[in-house]
């Protein structure tokens, strides 16, 4: 029998998240309002860089950004002046096409700057089309091929245990990505190896490349499925910063079992004509659309 040591309910920990004084587990310990402001700035920069390069993936960047801000702004233990610090927490962006979200957060933490992200997708830029650890400081994985990130995270989690390190390994995947068989290999293996330092966030925006997930190949009740593989799972509104912070703290603290957060999100969140619109998975806004987006976000 497995001990259900950790509350499934994120609400139990939320009071602590919001009110607590600086904790060693919350290096940035930002408040909800600050986080929401940061997320808004990130959204603006996501649109800016994609508009500038006239290519990239706005939909999945905008759906993921609140979770990413919530993570970096609270528990993710990194050293912004030394992004390669060996004992940092890892953030593995498996849905690597949502790279603008990552570049926007690295900009917020001063690891890259506006000049860097405005060169997104151009020759020689450190901001490659898909996030790549070989090109960008602060990026922990070379992504682009869906389905691989959780396996990589599992390797990082083994290494952390061998090093007797407290570092946590966070992995974000898309819901379309859960159609990849390799992801379930990793979910099964993480249970067997009791990888409590491994944390999975599923960006459940209901849209993949061609169309809605429900039309391409519905993935069903992910919470139940992942839970049946032995994980602790909670489900939240992935755009509600309070819920996000609560769930992140819950997952951060749970160290017995691998922990998963299913974040129900809206693809393209924040830009009216992109919201829940499959055609903005991998399409840049034109000039007119860009101005509408900027108005809506400011």
């Amino acid at each position: 029998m497995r001990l259900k040591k950790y509350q499934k309910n994120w609400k139990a920990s939320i009071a602590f998240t919001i009110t607590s004084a600086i904790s060693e587990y919350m290096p940035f310990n930002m408040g909800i309002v600050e986080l929401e402001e940061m997320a808004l700035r990130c959204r603006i920069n996501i649109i800016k860089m994609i508009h500038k390069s006239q290519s990239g993936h706005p939909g999945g960047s905008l759906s993921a950004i609140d979770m990413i801000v919530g993570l970096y702004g609270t528990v993710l233990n990194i050293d912004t002046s030394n992004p390669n610090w060996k004992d940092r927490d890892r953030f593995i962006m498996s849905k690597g096409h949502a790279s603008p979200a990552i570049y926007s957060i690295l900009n917020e933490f001063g690891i890259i700057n506006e000049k860097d992200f405005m060169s997104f997708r151009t020759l020689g830029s450190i901001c490659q089309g898909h996030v790549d650890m070989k090109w960008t400081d602060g990026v922990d994985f070379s992504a682009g091929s869906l389905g691989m990130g959780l396996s990589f995270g599992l390797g990082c989690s083994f290494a952390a245990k061998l090093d007797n390190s407290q570092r946590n390994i966070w992995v974000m995947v898309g819901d379309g990505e859960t159609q990849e068989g390799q992801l379930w290999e990793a979910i099964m293996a993480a249970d067997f190896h009791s990888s409590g330092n491994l944390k999975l966030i599923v960006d459940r925006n209901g849209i993949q490349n061609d169309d809605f997930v429900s039309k391409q190949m519905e993935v069903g009740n992910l919470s139940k499925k992942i839970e049946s593989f032995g994980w602790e799972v909670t489900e939240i509104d992935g755009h509600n910063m309070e819920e996000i912070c609560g769930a992140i703290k819950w997952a951060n603290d749970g160290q017995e079992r691998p922990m998963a957060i299913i974040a129900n999100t809206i693809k393209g969140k924040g830009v009216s004509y992109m919201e829940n619109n499959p055609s903005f998975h991998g399409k840049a806004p034109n000039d007119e659309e860009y101005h509408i987006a900027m108005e809506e976000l400011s």
Partner: protein
Amino acid sequence: MSVPSEGGASRDGYGNALLRLAENSDVVVLEADLGKSTKSCHFRSKYPERTFSLGIAEQNMMLVAAGLASSGKIPMASTFAIFTERGFEQIRNGIARPCLKAHICGSHGGIHTGSDGSSAQSIEDLAIYRTLPNMTIIHPADDISAEELTMQVVDLEGPSYMRTIRNKVPRSYSEETKNELKIGKGSLLRDGNDVVIICCGVMVSKSIDAAIILEKEGINAAVIDMHTIKPLDEQMLDLWSKKCRCIVTAEDHSIIGGLGSAIAEHNSRTNLVPMEMIGVKDRFGESGDSEELFKIMSMTTEDIVKAARKSISRK
């Protein structure tokens, strides 16, 4: 099975090397339910805390290796050569592209694997991994050289793929001559100036046998064990193709894309000397004894002898 009672299988060399490498606490072993076959099982028995069993799930294993390597560990992941291929794109995008120091061993390579039949006989692994930037590709001849080359793999600056063999073959190396082995440098096993036989894996001992037969005909054949298929020892190639002015290649692998192809690519850019290739000629294997299979595929010692005569006649 008519395997020689003397000799060694390269998979045993790999297993021995893992035990020796264990001294370095960063070395970890990954398995996909074939540790008894690839011989990582010995490491597992002695160092269970550093051995990760990932089940029959090769794609996951490749990225777990990458994650470990990115965190400073030295992962040694093995399964059958053929099943590493299921994770080809994982190796490509997850290991080779970010140039992570993860080392993959595919055992039971080639048709030499025998009676398991074509599904287990990888005849294309060297070809597919050779196309990946950053990868070092190694295929040792026997247990002694496999052990020595595995010891060196961990010092590489990037990832590697090593193909080992299930069955025992006559040894081409001894405890003394193994010291001359170096990744990226071909090993001259026999001097000669009429033809150079460049070979790898189980074809090395056959090539030496062929050279002995040729000597009786007054033909001096040099034999080079080109255990490192990539990076190819081009300097040595140039030297010996100039000296002998004709080449035979021999490998237990498809003639499309393997050692012979690598040498032909170089030869076509440089010295252009006649060349004959021994290998699997664009077909799958089947069940049978290794030697029977080599016979029906024209890959015996006698076939190497014939290829040498033909290559010489084309000078």
